[in-house]
């Protein structure tokens, strides 16, 4: 269920991902590769969501703190690990491996102690003591590395000669010193060759453990991302979803990015509760009443679940979707007319094809809004008819009663409460911001309704926004004429 970059931007994914912050380069790489699980990995997704829940259940634990500290020290040494077995490995690479294996030993110990409580299903981490003992045979735990003379007879011999001549150099001067330095050059060369042979031997002795070391790096990347997901839930909230066979429902679902914007403006996001099942439903409501926000919030939370993240809701029941199809005009960035309509048709075409091969969530935001109302109604009715019988879950935002009447299930954004336009005008006269006033009168919650009546509140919104009086008067006159 891949989304295009512009769709990801549209649903506000970046806000969430920016706050997902792994501590190691391997965790960050996992994050870059983060995307929806496809159906073949459904069991893996279930394990991941369950492991995230188990991580959160651990609460605060000193072993977790140590894991985080260790992850911060973790370097991406996959290039070095891939070279294990090569005879030309060098001392710095062996140092990197030794340091990593020491770090891994501590991390694996903390992992084991946490695992007793957490019982993570999709995670396993083990240290590789046999490899560490090759690079630290005395078991000193010292994080530095040097090639020991005791590991190689020819190296020991070269170094004995080197030490001897350096003693003489230190006591000499002038031409005698120069001559000794030249003799030293040969010894240094012997030492370098002996060191290289030793590096090669160590490298080959490490080879049987290469796969285990590579596996531990991969597991640490996974663990890092899982801990980052848990930190994200602690920061922004979220709840483990229940995976269903078809039902899609959220109780008190929010969109964290929009909630953040509202919070900065002194307002609050109204949590949304919605329940859908295979078939087509409609969402209607007043202009500026939050219908598009509802679609975005739904799309974001469904997408997050499929990426192995928790949705932002008190309760979530989500089926496994093969595709998330968003059909939105591009009117919001000013592109209207045929090209926008063409884009919508292409998206609708893709959705119609997708539901024939997979189980999809299809979201239409006022389909064909740019075309004339008479045809627009027919197009939307056709969409409803097609997707009602598709077996997938479809939600269509519409303004048309004639469309709503055809839907099996209808939702309404509650919209403007018992309105008091005079009160709104007084607030605005007192200097209140237009949007603040509108928000004061708007209920962004949604509810399921039986009748197909679509609220007619466009004029009220225009009044509350304080549209120019002459224009408003002309509009009102049209309302009066149509009643007659």
């Amino acid at each position, binding site marked *: 269920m891949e989304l295009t970059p512009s769709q990801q931007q549209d649903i506000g994914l970046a806000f969430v991902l920016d706050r997902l912050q792994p501590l190691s380069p391997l965790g960050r790489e996992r994050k870059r590769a983060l995307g929806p699980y496809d159906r073949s990995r459904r069991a893996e997704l279930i394990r991941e969501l369950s492991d995230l829940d188990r991580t959160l259940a651990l609460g605060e634990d000193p072993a977790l703190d140590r894991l985080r500290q260790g992850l911060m020290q973790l370097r991406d040494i996959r290039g070095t690990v891939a070279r294990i077995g090569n005879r030309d490995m060098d001392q710095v690479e062996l140092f990197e491996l030794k340091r990593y294996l020491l770090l891994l030993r501590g991390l694996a110990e903390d992992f084991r102690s946490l695992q007793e409580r957490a019982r993570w299903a999709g995670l396993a981490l083990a240290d590789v003591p046999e490899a560490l003992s090759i690079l630290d045979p005395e078991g000193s735990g010292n994080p530095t590395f040097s090639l020991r003379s005791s590991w190689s007879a020819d190296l020991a011999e070269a*170094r004995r000669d080197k030490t001897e001549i*350096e003693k003489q150099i230190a006591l000499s001067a002038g031409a005698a010193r*120069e001559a000794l330095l030249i003799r030293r050059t040969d010894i240094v060369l012997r030492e370098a060759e002996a060191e290289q042979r030793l590096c090669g031997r160590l490298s080959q002795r490490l080879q049987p453990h290469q796969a285990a070391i590579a596996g531990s790096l991969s597991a640490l990347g996974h663990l890092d991302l899982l801990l980052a997901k848990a930190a994200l839930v602690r920061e922004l909230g979220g709840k483990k979803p229940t995976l269903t066979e078809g039902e899609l429902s959220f109780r008190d679902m929010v969109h964290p990015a929009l909630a953040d914007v509202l919070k900065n403006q002194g307002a609050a996001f109204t949590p949304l509760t919605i329940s859908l099942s295979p078939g087509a439903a409609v969402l209607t409501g007043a202009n500026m009443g939050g219908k598009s926000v509802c679609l975005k919030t739904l799309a974001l939370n469904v997408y997050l679940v499929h990426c192995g993240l928790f949705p932002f809701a008190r309760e979530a029941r989500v089926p496994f979707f093969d595709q998330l199809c968003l059909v939105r005009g591009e009117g919001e960035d000013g592109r209207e007319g045929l090209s926008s309509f063409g884009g919508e048709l292409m998206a609708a075409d893709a959705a119609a094809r997708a539901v024939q091969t997979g189980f999809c969530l299809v979201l239409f935001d006022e389909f064909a809004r740019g075309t004339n109302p008479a045809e627009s109604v027919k197009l939307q009715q056709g969409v409803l008819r097609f997707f009602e019988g598709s077996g997938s879950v479809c939600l269509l935002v519409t303004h048309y009663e004639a469309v709503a009447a055809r839907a099996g299930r209808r939702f309404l954004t509650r919209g403007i409460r018992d309105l008091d336009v005079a009160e709104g005008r007084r607030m605005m006269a007192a200097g209140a911001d237009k949007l603040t006033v509108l928000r004061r009168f708007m209920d962004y919650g949604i509810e399921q309704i039986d009748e197909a009546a679509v609220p007619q509140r466009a004029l009220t919104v225009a009044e509350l926004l304080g549209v120019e009086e002459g224009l408003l008067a002309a509009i009102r006159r049209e309302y009066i004429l149509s009643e007659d």
Partner: protein
Amino acid sequence: MLFDLIAPYTTVCLAGMCKNAGKTTALNALIRGAAARGVLLGLTSIGRDGEREDLVTGTYKPPIYVTGGTLFATSRGLLPRCDVTGEILSLTGLYTPLGEVVILRALSDGFVELAGPSMREQIVALEAALKGFGAEKVLVDGALFRRSLCAPEAAEGILLSTGASLGPDMHRTVADTAFVAELLGLPISGPWPDMGDRRFARGGLFDDLASALEGQGDALFVTGAFTDAMAALLLRRKGIPAEINLEDGTRLLLSRENYEKLRARGVAFRVRDRNDLVAVTVNPSSAYGAPYDAAAFQRLMAERVSVPVMNIWEESAWN
């Protein structure tokens, strides 16, 4: 001995007036001095230096010969050219064009080539890391030419090397070196106003020098570089500030001529931060031409600076 002069400082930067001024010879002299006194040294460089073949002139340049136990930081790509037996202590996460900077302990005597980072903050971090591994004193093989002299935050003391390779005219070499020594020794300024991100202060805060010169007060404060163009603007005016305050001596990017003209107009330069010039070493031989008269060079230099002037070629064990 040279080492006694740097004894009060825990970080010393070696700067050279030009190639072949004797910077590396001075560094070797300090390494021998430290060994004789049992002082554990940490070595690194600003950028790359210490090549056996001088890349610019092709002349022989004494490489750095360390004693066993010495800590040093260099780039991974230069390790094959270090012939000490080494213990790797740390990979620093700092990178140079020659690879990541590695900290090692020499387990034997031998030759090393140094290539450390070039950015001030990174050098400061590396010095701290060397001290963390036990270095009692850190020597930084600095870059050439005064425009990239050690910044005060990177070293407490500076050792300046000069020599006949700077040019055939000994008097000019002495005057140029004395000028650099003077910039390094500028007196410390009074308290600075809070300037935020503004470049100039004089009574108020300003973004350009011309406006600042309309301001009130004797003291002008300048963040960042003070250049020849600014000097020219000042020299065209009648009334100019009596005192110009800079962040440190490396910010003064002036020709000696303009500096002296401003001094003649009564301008005093002061700096907020300073590292001490510890000594000047002189190398009378030139990589390019005739040598100077060694005694005269040392004497003239000593007359122009207030710190000791040493001809380390005379006390050098080899050259």
